[in-house]
């Protein structure tokens, strides 16, 4: 073979090898994409609250009575994950707090009790009764109720504030003791929203009951 012929053979072989390598990697790329297409796609998740943590508390003064069923946070979520295109179901999940039985705070001995209640599963704080009126022994009751407690039958109106449902509970429309949520999983009894008494604008009781852990069960479709 002439020298030029040999060079042509070597260069040709090198080019052929390079061509085969490109073919190999392009095939691998396609295979990876196929695998991804089978398991992955754009998706949307909807979170629906189906159960709420609500609070009952007195915490006001002058025999205010107990204010009830103010929701402070979600106790159960239903999660539905679907493909963004076509809406096919991918996953459903239920998120639950570690317990869903009533939890009671007793200010007399500063204890929290409830069936299955484990303090390690919750972040809590309770400050009650600075005005000394303590129906039910000043107990605070955290309940787990379906979202139907948000029945908009109650309306508080004061000045520009209009709140439907149980988002806020007051002794009456113009009263000074109102139980309301405070941020995530917190609450307060705010004294003297409407009155101009000497204790105007004080938080007379407050609490926090936030789940520190969730138990999730899911189904793959």
């Amino acid at each position, binding site marked *: 073979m002439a020298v030029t012929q040999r060079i042509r053979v070597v260069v040709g072989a090198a080019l052929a090898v390079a061509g085969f390598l490109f073919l190999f990697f392009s095939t691998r790329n396609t295979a990876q994409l196929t695998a991804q297409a089978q398991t992955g796609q754009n998706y949307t998740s909807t979170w629906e609250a189906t159960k709420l943590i609500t609070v009952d508390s007195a915490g006001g003064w002058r025999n205010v009575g107990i204010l009830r069923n103010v929701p402070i946070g979600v106790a159960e979520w239903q999660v539905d994950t679907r493909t963004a295109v076509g809406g096919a179901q991918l996953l459903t999940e239920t998120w639950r707090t570690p317990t869903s039985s009533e939890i009671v705070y007793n200010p007399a001995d500063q204890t929290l009790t409830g069936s299955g209640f484990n303090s390690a599963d919750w972040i809590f704080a309770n400050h009650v009764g600075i005005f000394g009126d303590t129906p039910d022994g000043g107990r605070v009751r955290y309940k787990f109720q379906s979202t139907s407690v948000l029945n908009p039958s109650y309306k508080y109106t004061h000045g520009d504030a209009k709140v439907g449902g149980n988002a806020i509970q007051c002794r009456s429309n113009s009263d000074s003791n109102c139980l309301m949520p405070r941020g995530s999983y917190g609450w307060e009894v705010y004294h003297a929203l409407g009155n101009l008494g000497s204790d105007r604008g004080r938080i007379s009781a407050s609490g926090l009951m936030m789940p520190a852990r*969730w138990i999730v069960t899911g189904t793959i479709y």
Partner: protein
Amino acid sequence: MKMRKIISIIVDNLLAIGLFIFAVGILSYYNSPRQNAVSSLPIKTSLTERDIAIAEAVKNGKKEYTFTTRFIPGVGVITDPETYKKEWEQQLQEDNNKKAP
């Protein structure tokens, strides 16, 4: 005799053949879908616990899975509950002082 002639033609044209294969390979490579061009990702969340639970269920041929998480929807992960509680109480105290007449 014929075989030798064919081999001779191939050897003479090996550069052209190599060039042809190279061109086909490079065209195929650049026309194939790139991984970084994929805009959709597999079902992926920030929850490692979920990923592990799903992987385990798939491995065992199950459709149901369960896991626990310290991720609080709408709040995030609270790494230090005591600090969170103290900050919540401190904010409450500050608000109370502001609201006091």
